[in-house]
């Protein structure tokens, strides 16, 4: 897949409505990943579904989605501009994932991202994504079913992410990382802030965790990596790339910086490359890994 820059919108942030995805592409993202879509409609959890922790965010949206049958329109609205739209899907079994993937492909998605990593919903996401055998089965079946590229998005909430990365070896790229499982308690209300109690932490606080995951997986596998987690400026992007990422996804930073973040980071990266005398992004990828 060709990208005009390494900057992709991460799944679950401003990507439920086709018009929003389209605007984000128009305003500078190289590609967008849709919100994760499942087989049937899910309302998700009752608000509060986010807690603001400074610039970080704890969320338990609860995989709310209209169901795959209702998502074709959003993809075609988003594709009003000719840039890649990556369809994110979640399921409980290899069979469910592959059915969802074919639907996404038929709607015009340019790639499929497998959500093997949402930390706050029972039976999905990281519960699926921490079982290496199941991960391998899902990736294998989806790869056999669709012809567009398949990305596997992994969870940091495991003992050994390299082991899961190797299980997902058949994927065209790995997306590292999803949110970190966490809780916030309101000490005056004396209860968890999120209605679901558990949520996923995102934002600057998790960047070092994401960089570590990319670093380890880059060293141990030959997979293409898309870095994600806590990126809010060009330095973060370069850091992820030096750890081994070829592209990155940006999510929570839109809360502070707004949709203009993609254009702003792009400008800053170009300036950085000029100042450092770099000819292409290839020179950066993996450059920070200790040999």
């Amino acid at each position, binding site marked *: 897949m060709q990208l005009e820059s390494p900057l992709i919108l991460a799944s*679950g*942030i*401003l*990507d*439920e*409505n086709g*018009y*929003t*995805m*389209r*605007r*984000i592409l*128009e305003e500078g993202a190289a590609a967008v990943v849709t*919100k994760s879509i499942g087989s049937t*409609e*899910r*309302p*998700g959890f*009752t*608000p*509060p*579904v*986010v*807690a*603001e922790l400074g610039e970080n*965010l704890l*969320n338990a*949206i609860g995989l*709310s*989605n*209209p*169901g795959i049958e*209702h998502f074709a*329109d*959003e993809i075609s609205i988003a594709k009003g501009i000719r840039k890649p739209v990556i369809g994110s899907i979640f399921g409980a079994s290899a069979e469910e994932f592959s059915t969802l993937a074919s639907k996404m492909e038929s709607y015009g998605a340019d790639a499929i991202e497998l959500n093997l990593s949402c930390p706050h919903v029972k039976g999905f996401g990281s519960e699926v994504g921490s079982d290496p055998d199941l991960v391998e089965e899902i990736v294998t079946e989806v790869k056999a079913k669709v012809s567009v590229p398949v990305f596997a998005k992994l969870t940091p909430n495991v003992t050994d992410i390299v082991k899961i990365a190797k299980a997902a070896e058949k994927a065209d790229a790995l997306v590292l990382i999803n949110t970190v499982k966490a809780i916030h308690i*309101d000490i*005056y*209300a004396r*209860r968890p*802030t999120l*209605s679901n109690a558990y949520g996923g932490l995102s934002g600057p606080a998790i960047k070092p965790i994401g960089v570590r995951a990319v670093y380890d997986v880059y060293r141990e596998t030959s997979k293409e990596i898309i870095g994600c987690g806590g990126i809010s400026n060009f330095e973060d992007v370069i850091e992820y790339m030096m750890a081994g990422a070829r592209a990155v996804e940006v*999510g*929570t930073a*839109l*809360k502070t910086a*707004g949709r203009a973040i993609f254009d702003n980071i792009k400008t800053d990266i170009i300036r950085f490359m000029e100042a450092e005398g770099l000819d292409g992004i290839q020179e950066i990828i993996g450059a920070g890994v200790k040999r």
Partner: protein
Amino acid sequence: MIHADIIRKEKLSPTVSTLYFHWDADVKPGQFVMVWAPGTGEIPMSLSHIGKEKAFTVKNYGPTSDMLIKLEPGQKVYFRGPYGRPFSVVKGKTLLIGGGSGMASLHPLINRNAFGLIAARTREEILFMNEFESGKVRVTTDDGSFGIKGNVLAGLKDLDVDAFDMIYACGPEIMLYNLYKYLKEKKVNAELSLERLMKCGVGVCDSCSINGFQLCRDGPTFTMDQLQYMNEFGTEKLTFSGTRVNVH
């Protein structure tokens, strides 16, 4: 999450109350907070009072607003914010058009230069009528139990909208959409404050978006010019799960 003790409660109608609290923050007219009723839910509420003493005016629609309206002085309110783009404040004559609980967000704009047009379903639901100077307010009710019978457009019929330097409006989307179509012909300055489902309030979840603009961040107030490019305005929206449906 911010927390404050309720210092006073004022019942405005059988289904609407104002809850006052101290909160040392700079809030502008039209901004809102996400109010949390622990164990029940979290919903967007405009600040109806933005001086040293703050307040929101809540109408009982469902579970969360019902919990809030039952709070009493001495109990705590929990909220985060303020969020959203405020109304732009102008000098000169203003027209405030409020439908139902939409009057809450217009309340901070009531002053000597303001003329009010209040649209309510029935007599009991008219809010803040007596806060306008005498002779500077008119009311429409759907059932004709007070004022002019009909919707907001009936109240505008013989009003010279050109005479105002700015028109502010807040209410249900369908009312604002009809108002927008009416005002578009007149070439007036107007800002409309929209209401849509809001899950996060901070511009990440996409539940409140219209044509890629986040109500919670780019709005909730929009100018006539901005609204003109939004084909989802008044026509389509996403439900709690994200399913595309007609607005009404």
